[in-house]
């Protein structure tokens, strides 16, 4: 088990290297002068020249990459021009809320998605299955940003049940209950797509498990239908679904961009949108790099978890 984790950690190195290269190249190959793009049209020639020097723009591309990579490894992602502070500091403040939101949405989508998949598979072709299939279709077809607005309209504006936006109330806010109230609508909006995808895939996985010999054997042993479904088939389905759940984290981290914008959630998604609008390229670069690395780590975690869940892989 430890050997496996070590091996996977080593395999991470080329992936992270590739990600850094892509992030670097996208920003480096953009048309025009990066210094001008970063400082904007009103920059003085002196500041442009000093930034060019700082970015090492006179150097060949490959050297620039390794200089940049060296800085990244030392925790230096550069300085945000628009915010006038180091990118790392800004990200440090923003990453917590995003991870909280994504984790809440992931938890929701796993519980609801797998639950829906199991129920649909167990009642295949009956009304439960048809209703769930219809809901799944809506879930994967709905624009999340629109759904977020709809939820705000209904639950915050019309019913006044939940706050419209933000992470804490301005007055007398700050408690856990306050946080959860603010978290609920964004987490639901963010979870919908992933729930749909997980429900669809887990229904398929469950049906496949139900057609296996060991399920027939479990029935031949006289086990109750509940034991057959929730003990035998579900355990196997779960092992299969763990990597898929890891992949959903990618959709959630991406979808956070919309949801944080709509709900004024102080996370990295909103930061990225603002940074793109203000052409704050180093902030974009740093943000994308950090989120992509987080995604890779989540998937590593999923693989390790699957490893732990499935004895066949575990002992190999």
């Amino acid at each position, binding site marked *: 088990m430890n050997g496996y984790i070590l091996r996977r950690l080593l395999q991470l190195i080329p992936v992270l290297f*590739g*990600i850094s290269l*892509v*992030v670097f190249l*996208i*920003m480096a190959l953009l*048309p025009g002068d990066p210094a001008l793009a970063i400082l904007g049209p009103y920059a003085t020639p002196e500041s442009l020249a000093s930034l060019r020097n700082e970015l090492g723009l006179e150097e060949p591309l490959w050297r620039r990459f390794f200089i940049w990579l060296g800085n990244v490894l030392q925790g230096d992602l550069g300085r945000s021009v628009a915010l006038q502070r180091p990118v790392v500091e800004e990200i440090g403040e923003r990453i917590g809320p995003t991870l909280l939101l994504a984790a809440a949405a992931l938890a929701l989508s796993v519980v609801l998605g797998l639950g829906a998949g199991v129920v649909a*598979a167990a009642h295949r072709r009956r009304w439960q299955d048809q209703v769930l299939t219809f809901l799944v*279709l*809506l879930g*994967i*077809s709905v*624009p999340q*940003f*629109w759904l977020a*607005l709809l939820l*705000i*309209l209904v639950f915050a*504006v019309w019913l006044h049940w939940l706050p419209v936006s933000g992470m804490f109330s301005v007055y007398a806010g700050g408690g856990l209950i306050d946080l959860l109230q603010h978290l609920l609508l964004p987490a639901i909006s963010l979870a919908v797509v992933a729930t749909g995808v997980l429900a669809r895939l887990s229904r*398929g996985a469950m*049906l*496949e*498990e*139900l*057609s*296996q010999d*060991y399920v*027939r*054997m479990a*029935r*031949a*042993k*006289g*086990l109750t*239908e509940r034991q057959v479904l929730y003990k*035998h088939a579900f*355990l*196997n389905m779960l*092992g299969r679904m763990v990597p898929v759940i890891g992949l959903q984290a990618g*959709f959630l*981290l*991406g979808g956070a*961009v*919309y949801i944080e*914008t*709509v709900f004024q959630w102080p996370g990295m998604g909103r930061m*990225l*949108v603002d*940074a*793109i*609008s203000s*052409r704050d*390229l180093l902030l*974009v670069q740093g943000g*994308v790099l950090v*989120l992509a690395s987080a*995604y890779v780590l989540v998937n590593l975690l999923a693989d390790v978890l699957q490893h732990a869940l*499935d*004895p*066949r892989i575990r002992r190999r």
Partner: protein
Amino acid sequence: MNGTAIRAAWRSAGWSRFRGNRLALFGLSLVAVVMALALAAPTLPLADPYATNLSLRMLPAGSEDHLLGTDQLGRDLLSRLVWGTRTSLAIGLFAVSIAALLGTVIGLVAGYFRGWLDSVLMRGIDVLLAFPYLLLALAIVAALGPGLRNAMIAIAVVNVPFFARTVRGTVVGLAEREFIDAARLTGAGDGYILLRELLPNVLPVVVIMASTNLAWMILETAGLSFLGLGAQPPMADLGSMLGTGREFLTTVPRVAMLPGAVILIVAVGINLVGDGLRDLLDPRLKAEGGSQPALQAVDRDATRSRRQPDVLLRVVGLATHFPQEDGIYRAVDDVTFDVGAGERIAIVGESGCGKTVTALSLLGLVPQPGRIVSGCVLFESTDLLQQADEARRRLRGGRIAYIPQDPLTALNPVLPIGAQIVEVLRVHQGIDCKAARRRALELLEQVRIDRPRDRVNAYPHELSGGMRQRVLIAMALANDPALIIADEATTALDVTVQAQILNLLYALCEERDAALIFISHDLALVGQLCDRALVMYAGRVVEEGGIKRLLSSPAHPYTRGLLACAPELGRPEKALTPIAGQPPALNDLPLGCHFAPRCNHVQDNCRTGMIELRSIGERHRVRCIRAGELETWLR
């Protein structure tokens, strides 16, 4: 799935099956209507979507000249919705075409040339896939700058990896096929093979992927526009309409809600069509899993009066059919037999002859869409087919135990074997965990597993095949069954292990006075174990009798054929004669004797009417009209 299979599916199933899918058809009409509206936008009697008039701001729906009212700049909302749909659809289609084109080229090249080119391309694709989908698009937009064209490029680029990967996979599968070699042998160049041989075969795959990804891509481009990174005002685009309308959410929700609803409708339509196409071309995805087994109540007949005390199981006229698209498969038809208490009988025949379906019918576990259409199964004087699900469940694993063919797949891979024995004890006896565990250890010992204490927590894959089969036998014995049904229980094992398992089964049945139905394709093998045998062919019993009698003087030509093609230990000189031909298709059984097409002794009246199982000696029955006469001259 691969290209040729898909093309074949297009041809054979094609439109008629797609038409049969009501949901997909609904999606198609939805998409068609939306497309038609979008295409016809310039000719429709709509107001100018860009004509602003601040004095007419936010007119309510139903206003004169403005069916859905106006937006914050006094523009006609309906007109903007139609034009916006036009933009969103066009952008989505463009993006999907670019992604499909680039992805197909990369996939074809990587899959066809392989080697370093493949490695480089695919590692690059892997890195792109390591990014959260939307973030990569954002990075690209950040570099290129906001704008509809750039948003479209970004969405297209992040979708290229999906196409490239799938196409490459398909090509790798195809490149090893004969027709590619044939093309190479005729001297065709790489370009020719790629464009003329491979491309047409991957095209259907690409079309499916495009149709399933189109909705995503429309949603994501709309999302970028919503964030202000795609289409810029005043352009009529659903995403940016939603983004700018957001400010007025609390006062005039209509302005933001309607564009989103249109996106939802478009996406639902496209997804339905995509799903329909995928179901059509990749039947594996909608493969029938076995859910709750179905049993149909059947008509009773007069068999009850003939109950005998020493008969444990009496099967009368059992018929199990599988209705499919191409007809009814009569897997089991008119099967009648008895099993006495403690008696061991064998059911013998080729694969597909109905042995397993017979066993599953007895257990009430016929897989979908199979149905028991007639007959009755009397077990200890109650008709199993009449019983409620719950009562039948209690019998399974209790009074009637089952030993399956492949011990590896029959054991749950993620549970230790001990837990799998414990659960069968607990569900039937209601004993506590500790007692069940003790009993499980005893059972493992009884099936001669060494060091049961060490093995009880092992997972199935950690045991040898013979050991796994012993575990299944332990499970079958757990609740002292009166009847054990063993379905090819030794087929998956080595010959030496086979003999051990047979001996064990024999001894355990003897010891406990349990009856056994042993299903096998090997008549000689069951001779050591069983008292009587049924020979099945194409769903029917063709011969039944004492095992010695069947081995020494088989009456049915099929039984003789079975014996002739089985090797015998100690007789290496024996010539093995396989039975010529194939068993008949179960959905198209011949009239009269089912074996007639393969029989050497067939005559005209073999092919007419129903041939009955008739008695030709003590407890010896055969379904052959020539049985008596053949026996004499075949000796």
